[in-house]
């Protein structure tokens, strides 16, 4: 029997297609979580009130913040889940090697992030309409976005979600590498939060958020996320290349 020569990129495409089909549950959970997020956003994501002379007013913001945050957490957890043993073994029942497995996972996470980013935008509109009908508001002011602003907003959402997915992927791979990370990672994370709390002026977590959040140049922001994500994913690739399957 002759030996088949296969091209790596072909297999990546096949694995990617296979994953889109078989990880369908991921998208179901996305919809459920978004509905939850809409519910949580229903009271407005920010509010305030004021009065002057004879006027008293309350105002509420209806933004997609909560939905976006929920999606970021969803991406983080989804990425961890697809590094678990059952999912890794699935790949190896068909043709693959470690690099192809990781690259197709990254492509899957990227598609999931894009899908999530678009639905964040869509569900924001849905819940704004719901709020319009079900809440007795007297006036509604809608920020109308230009096309560029809209595109930039969507890309930002997608990038944030993808950043969390990349972080989740590395965390997942580290845990697969050694179960000890199951303890170490939460310790570092919560330790950082507690340190911030004790010191009074929060540094650790804030610095990380500010690195992305305070970036005013859009191009630089994209660069930052792309560089950090690639660093996280390349590390994952490097680690998983040495991992054994089905011990």
């Amino acid at each position, binding site marked *: *029997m002759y030996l088949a020569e296969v091209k790596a990129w072909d*297999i990546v495409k096949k694995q990617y297609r296979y994953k889109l089909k078989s990880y369908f549950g991921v998208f179901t959970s996305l919809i459920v979580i978004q509905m939850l997020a809409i519910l949580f956003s229903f009271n407005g994501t920010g509010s305030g009130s004021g009065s002057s002379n004879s006027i008293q007013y309350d105002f509420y913001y209806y933004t997609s913040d909560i939905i976006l945050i929920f999606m970021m957490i969803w991406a983080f957890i989804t990425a961890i889940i697809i590094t678990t043993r059952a999912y890794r073994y699935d790949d190896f029942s068909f*043709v693959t*090697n470690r690099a192809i497995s990781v690259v197709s996972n990254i492509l899957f996470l990227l598609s999931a992030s894009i899908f999530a980013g678009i639905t964040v935008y869509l569900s924001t509109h849905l819940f704004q309409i719901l709020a319009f009908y079900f809440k007795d508001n007297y006036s509604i002011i809608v920020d109308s976005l230009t096309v560029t602003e809209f595109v930039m907003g969507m890309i930002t959402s997608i990038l944030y979600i993808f950043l969390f997915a990349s972080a989740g992927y590395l965390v997942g791979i580290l845990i697969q590498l050694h179960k000890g990370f199951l303890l170490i990672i939460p310790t570092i994370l919560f330790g950082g939060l507690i340190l911030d709390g004790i010191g009074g002026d929060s540094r650790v977590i804030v610095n990380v958020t500010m690195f992305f959040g305070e970036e005013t140049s859009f191009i630089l922001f994209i660069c930052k996320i792309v560089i950090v994500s690639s660093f996280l994913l390349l590390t994952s690739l490097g680690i998983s290349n040495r991992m054994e399957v*089905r011990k």
Partner: protein
Amino acid sequence: MNVVVCHELTKQYGRSKAIQNMTFQIAENKITGLIGRNGAGKTTLLKIIAGYLHHSAGDIQVFSENPFNNLKVAANTIFIDNEMSFSQGLTLKELLETAGSFYPNWNHDLAMKLFDYFSFNPNQYHGNLSKGMKSTFNMIVGLAARCPLTIMDEPTSGMDSATRKDFYRALLKEYIAYPRTIILSSHLLDEVEDLLEEVLLIKSGEKCLHLSIDQLKEYAIGVRGKTVNVEKWTEKMEPISVQEIGANMSYAVIRNDRSIKELEDARQLGLEVTPVSAEDICSYLTSKTKGGIDHVFSRG
């Protein structure tokens, strides 16, 4: 051409060695049986060949390449065992279609025919199958993939006897129509010996024997008779196994390399010389102590 070449192959888990200094070759288009007791290292060896595990020392070449993390080896090898994991999101039919898109030699017609023959429900999920049904499904994937190197690790576990027979027949027919290198691990040599061309016998991680099945069948002879006579006759030989089989009677298994004179002596001592089945030879060769299980229960 040799498909699998191992040289001083060693695999270590922490301090314990699962595979020790194994050197052997597996030739192209042969059905080789990997036989050994539980925990002898069969599965570890097969996983190293399939490229799932790293070896610790020595050298292994599959299709002249190191199998670990190797795409060429992955595309031309299929590893079937009962731990095979398939996505929970796809039905059995979709799984077969997906497998078809991955394996270049995949024969979908055969897969579907076997699928119908074993009356699978196309809309079922792999996780909901019983153990025997899972093994049967995995076997269908293994046969239809037509990979130049097909590795099956105890493929019949959980199958009922009718399915086993069907499976061996299907394997043989497929092999004859499309010859390929098949490595079959089993601890039931009896069942597979008609199928095998070669036997690789391993004992606690080491190679014990690598012979053709015909050579193995003639590897040893058994002598039965009065204990005194058996002891007298086997005095200068190294018996593979000696067992007591009742009052003052013994049964010894020795290498089949005695001269005609010695065999004549045996007859004169009233010993009965019998052939030993391949299965028995393997279990005698791999037993840890010479006395066998009876030793555990013997007093004094």
